[in-house]
């Protein structure tokens, strides 16, 4: 049922990547519990704009949990307290009147803060560019049904392919490791017969690029899996490790 609540926000404010940031406190009044978390920030921002102040910068786009653009650490949890949920799909009914809400950007050496809650995730693009694809040019592909793919294999590939590249795994990892992200793509393509020809080169190139970007190491702490808005499993990390060992021994 719709009701309204008042919150105290503590938000990380940082003008740009070259200056120091700090936590600032804002009051969010009359917040409908049907609002999404981002709509709540919209309301706070509208107030700031009317006062001539700089609104809180945050990344967001589709607002339906699929583009992977949004994300912040809310009360110590990437994308907030609800499991399997992006920040845009987190609704205010999960908060209580009078709550204090701490909002911070993803923290990782590889994700530099651009402004406030906006971080630079281009390291993820660099990793994909290192090999997160199947090298087929447009045209000339054989008939789509020429190679059957067992249903359970296609399903597993799809489980991995659901990754939205939001970076919550890195934000959640105590070591700021990107293994879940990288392993999701490696797994998807390693599982499918179409991806096998390049599997060995792909995993080596992607892992090497991941290491170059300054992410930490996987400690198998499973925080990534616990916080992933798409519930991507660390089974994929094991699969990537396997692929990596196989590729190295080849």
């Amino acid at each position, binding site marked *: 049922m719709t009701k309204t609540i008042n919150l105290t926000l503590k938000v990380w404010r940082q003008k740009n990547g070259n200056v120091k940031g700090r936590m600032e406190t804002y009051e969010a009044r009359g917040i409908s519990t*049907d609002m999404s978390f981002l709509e709540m920030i919209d309301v706070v921002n509208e107030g700031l704009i009317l006062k001539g102040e700089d609104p809180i910068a945050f*990344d967001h*786009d589709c607002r*339906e*949990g699929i583009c992977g653009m949004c994300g912040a650490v809310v009360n110590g949890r990437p994308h907030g307290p609800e499991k399997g949920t992006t920040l845009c799909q987190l609704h205010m009914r999960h908060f209580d009147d009078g709550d204090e809400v701490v909002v911070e950007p993803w923290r990782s050496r590889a994700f530099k803060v651009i402004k406030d809650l906006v971080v630079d995730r281009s390291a993820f693009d660099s990793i994909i560019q290192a090999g997160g694809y*199947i090298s087929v040019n*447009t*045209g000339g592909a054989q008939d789509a049904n020429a190679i059957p793919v*067992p249903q359970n294999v296609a399903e597993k590939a799809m489980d991995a392919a659901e990754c939205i590249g939001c970076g919550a795994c890195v934000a959640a990892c105590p070591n700021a490791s990107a293994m879940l992200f990288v392993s999701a793509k490696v797994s*998807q393509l390693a599982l499918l017969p179409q991806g096998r020809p390049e599997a060995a080169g792909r995993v080596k190139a992607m892992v090497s690029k991941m290491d170059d970007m300054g992410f930490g190491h996987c400690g198998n702490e499973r925080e990534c899996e616990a916080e992933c808005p798409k519930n991507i499993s660390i089974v994929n990390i094991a699969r990537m490790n396997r692929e990596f060992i196989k590729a190295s021994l080849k």
Partner: protein
Amino acid sequence: MKLDSKIPDGPIAEKWDRHKFDLKLVNPANKRKYTVIVVGTGLAGASASASLAELGYNVKTFCIQDSPRRAHSIAAQGGINAAKNYQNDGDSVFRLFYDTVKGGDFRAREANVYRLAQISNNIIDQCVAQGVPFAREYGGLLANRSFGGAQVSRTFYARGQTGQQLLLGAYGALSRQVAAKKVTLFARRDMLELVLVDGKAKGIITRNLVTGDIEKHAGDAVILATGGYGNVFFLSTNAMACNVTAAMRAYKKGACFANPCFTQIHPTCIPVHGDYQSKLTLMSESLRNDGRVWVPKTIGDKRKPADIPDSERNYFLEEKYPSFGNLVPRDVASRNAKEQCDKGFGVGETGYAVYLDFKDAIARDGEDVIRKKYGNLFTMYEKITAEDPYKSPMMIYPASHYTMGGLWVDYNLMSTINGLFVLGEANFSDHGANRLGASALMQGLADGYFIIPYTLGAYLAKEKPGTVNTDHDAFTEASSDVVTTLDKLLSIKGKRTCDDIHRELGKILWDYCGMSRNEEGLEKAKTLVKNLKKEFWTNVTVPGTAAGMNQTLERAGRVAEFLDFSLMLLEDARTRRESCGGHFNDAFQTDENEALRDDEHFSHVAAWEYNGEDREPILHKEPLVFEHVTLSQRSYK
């Protein structure tokens, strides 16, 4: 200006093949001398960038988000059509072509649609080769479902995330070319101006959304793949950043804008909750395969839906359209839902919602089967509304979703500006007055993978490469225009936020130019928008400066273009004095309240030419000739 659609001669089935042969080629060694600018990295932009780079062109690709993978194609849920006939249920290229033309209420170009249907099969092959994990049968072959008003099963899908998977496939291909240094990627860029040199598109001006720098980029041709304008309604299923700016800049530089009034209102969206709402969420239309749409038979029946017996429910789509039932095309389903709500039968807090009920499907197939098919959608619904659709029916209401109109292009996808090509939702070409489900993904990828690589080459073959660089006066002029506009937006310092004004604009359009329109309302809306435009330019407030990241400034620029665009949209709706597809004029309907076309007077594409600030645009008509389908009253009964 004369519109030349450049449709090739010959029988429809041979047009594209013959045309491909007739198109001039660029020598492989010369391709690397050309630079192509691609704006947008959705299905159309990413696939075009990758395919052109593979051919050897140098490509500069721009996107608004932090990564090309986030373009809004990613949100498409349902699927992608192809005429593979894997199901042996009588599908064919001709049937897909026929269904698409009919679904578009006979306002699309036959030749384009036929080509689309032909190419549809190559797309599936290409995507599978890229590792798109489409759904499969136990035997390992691809699965299909019937979707969006089709009577054959021709839709390929990857759970409820088909758009995401196709986009990630194209993004992979694009990334590969970035690694090969054939594509230079510019993320977090807003295209704010098109640069013409001697009447030809030769570059763009962008704003770097991180640094605020105004940047000049030159090329031998410009491709816009910048999506649709659904956000003109403020509340839509589009992503927040979707905008019409690039298309409007092209329009103001001489590209005609076609059929802006053809907007699609999608029937199955989660209803509006409150004034704070920033966007609407679509629930895949595939839900209508098993869900039954109904309202109570009594006005103001406040009982819980489960307590209303079948005899007191009005399954209005099944009643009215016994043969298609709940699967009628989107425009028909939307209009009927609105009609029921306008009559007072609507449900929910606002009375603007109808039920979509899975009770019978769950009883028939079991909850597990339903969960497997729609689990992610049900979860999404529950997250947003806090109601469990396994237990009580969903509430849905139509919302702005897709726009069939767009920049006018010829058969080669070139606009009325030489060297400016437009792909995907940003052009107008293939969906007529109403797009069928699972056809948008098909069109975006057809344009990007399989059409532009041929047609762009034919244009470039006649162009000398690298004739213009950013030192040219045209770039200096264009970038100073951009700076002037940004400074103006920052200097108003009024009392209203741009979202506030955008919300008001959206409401005007939704009320007067939404699911149904009439002369009087459209006139009124034009006046309201003109006043709102004045209000915007005198009373908007944008804090901060143009240096560095300023998200409010980005939005303000977009709202400014939406305001101008709305006037053209309203004018197009006003002059199209018929009903067809998504454009429903109250004055033109059959006795059964169906859209009544006027083929004698309106079987044409309405292409609008810019005629200066605050002046009515000039209308050009491209007649539509139908040789292979018979124009008929669409009937889904």
